[in-house]
């Protein structure tokens, strides 16, 4: 046995892995070879060094992490994991998104009464935009331009103020005569003849000059059409009534929906007539007593029939707007003929009037929106 052959057996010798014959042969060589004995010793020392290496320990928490990873996952969680892997990075983002959406929804929900309110007040915009033509000539132009946002802003602000302190609203109404004049101008614009006289009796404090009704009507129509065409036209006619509505809304803020708008207006009339606000501020403006929608199959036929009905009853068509949604007719009808007008309208088509005020004036102003 050469030294090389002997040294090839060292590893097995250390591990007692040699066959008896191999072991005997190697022992014989080692007995005669000092170099191989020394080399064997170094070999043993090397293996001892390696075996003495510091033991490795698994990191803390390893068992828990393995168990967690091995735990059967319920299927919803598996689905979520599939959607949102990797967990550690994406879950917080998803959670944050969910929280954000939830907060957003909550805010919108909380804000919705106000949104509804402002939606109802939206028709106030045309009044403001056409203000230059209605406003008194002495009103300076720049002030008028600035009025628009102020009035819009004031509408909401007033509403809140009213909720907190209703009497202050009356003072505010006094404090903003120019805006009020515009509303007055709109309200009284279409009143011709005897009816207008009657109205003047109800509204003695009116002071703004009256431009030609036709011109104003054209402007009103333009402004109306420039507004959201999807909005109910009835609501637009109610624009002047928004003040009263807001008063009403302050009392009962949670009544949503456009179906109650006409009802609101009727109520607001009641609310307004005995209003504590000074006459100069409120009595000049009188909204229609009744308004409603008349659904017909033929608008032209309905218009002709309505004209006949109006003349037959001794009533008068005081205004007409042609909107993209259909014509809107304002009729002044004597109280004794009002029931007949209602019946006549019901015969023309599907007539859905608002709730009537409990006390009808001698001449009732009825706004009919004709749709097909």
């Amino acid at each position: 046995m050469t030294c090389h052959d002997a040294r090839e057996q060292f590893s097995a010798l250390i591990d007692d892995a040699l066959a008896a014959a191999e072991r005997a042969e190697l022992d014989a060589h080692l007995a005669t070879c000092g170099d191989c004995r020394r080399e064997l010793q170094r070999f043993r020392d090397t293996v001892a060094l390696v075996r003495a290496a510091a033991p490795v320990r698994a990191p803390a928490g390893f068992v828990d992490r393995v168990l967690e990873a091995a735990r059967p996952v319920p299927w919803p969680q598996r689905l979520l994991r599939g959607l949102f892997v990797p967990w550690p990075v994406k879950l917080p983002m998803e959670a944050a998104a969910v929280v954000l959406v939830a907060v957003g929804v909550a805010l919108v929900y909380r804000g919705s009464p106000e949104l509804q309110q402002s939606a109802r007040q939206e028709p106030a915009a045309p009044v403001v935009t056409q203000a230059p033509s209605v406003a008194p000539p002495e009103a300076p132009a720049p002030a008028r331009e600035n009025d628009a946002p102020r009035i819009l802003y004031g509408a909401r602000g007033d509403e809140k103020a009213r909720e907190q302190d209703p009497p202050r609203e009356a003072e505010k109404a006094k404090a903003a005569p120019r805006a009020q004049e515009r509303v007055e101008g709109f309200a009284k614009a279409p009143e011709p003849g005897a009816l207008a006289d009657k109205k003047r009796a109800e509204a003695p404090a009116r002071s703004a000059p009256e431009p030609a009704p036709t011109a104003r009507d054209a402007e009103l129509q333009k402004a109306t059409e420039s507004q959201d065409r999807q909005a109910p036209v009835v609501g637009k006619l109610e624009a002047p009534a928004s003040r009263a509505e807001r008063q009403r809304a302050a009392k009962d803020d949670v009544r949503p929906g456009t179906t109650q708008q006409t009802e609101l207006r009727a109520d607001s009339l009641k609310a307004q007539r005995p209003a504590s606000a000074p006459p100069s501020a409120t009595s000049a403006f009188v909204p229609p007593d009744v308004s409603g929608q008349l659904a017909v199959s033929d608008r032209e036929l309905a218009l002709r029939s309505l004209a006949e009905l109006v003349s037959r009853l001794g009533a008068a068509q005081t205004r007409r707007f042609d909107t993209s949604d259909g014509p809107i007719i304002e009729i002044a009808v004597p109280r004794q003929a009002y029931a007949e007008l209602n019946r006549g309208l019901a015969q023309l088509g599907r007539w859905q009037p608002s709730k009537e005020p409990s006390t009808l004036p001698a001449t009732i102003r009825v706004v009919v929106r004709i749709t097909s």
Partner: protein
Amino acid sequence: MEGRTGDDASLVDRLRRGDPRAFEDLVIAYQHRVFGVALRMLGNRAEAEELAQEVFLRVHRAIGEFRGEAKLSTWLYAIASRLCLNRLASGERRMARYGEETLTRLASREISPAEEVERSELETALHRAITELSDERRIVVVLRDLEGLSYEEIAAALELELGTVRSRLHRARVDLREKLERFLP
């Protein structure tokens, strides 16, 4: 480890019966050994933990396939060794295998990924010497001299002939003897 055979048998029975505590006991019993093999082979603690976890998850899934012909520990070592060698052989490793430069840097840093292993100069040199072995020699040394498996167990775990195990082990020790020369008495 030899003394654990009876424990392993009952552990395997419990695992097969679906005893929920059995798997935890298995991980507790073998975590350091499996992690040790992975760390010695991969040289990186994070990667070693990931691989060790994978070993146990495979055991968890495949316990029904364990025939009981080999010891449970041998089966675990076999899985760990195979995963390590596969990972080392594939290009999937996130960390490159340590070259000389990496090892030098690793050894000179105060806190290394294998800090526990490299606590002393000897440990550092030892770790480096082992790491520098070829994969097939390193796994044999690790299983034999660090984990204490018999030649037969190593042959079973690595699916090698006994002679091959013996030969590789010898070559590995010769390499180590040269590298650790200065630490020998």
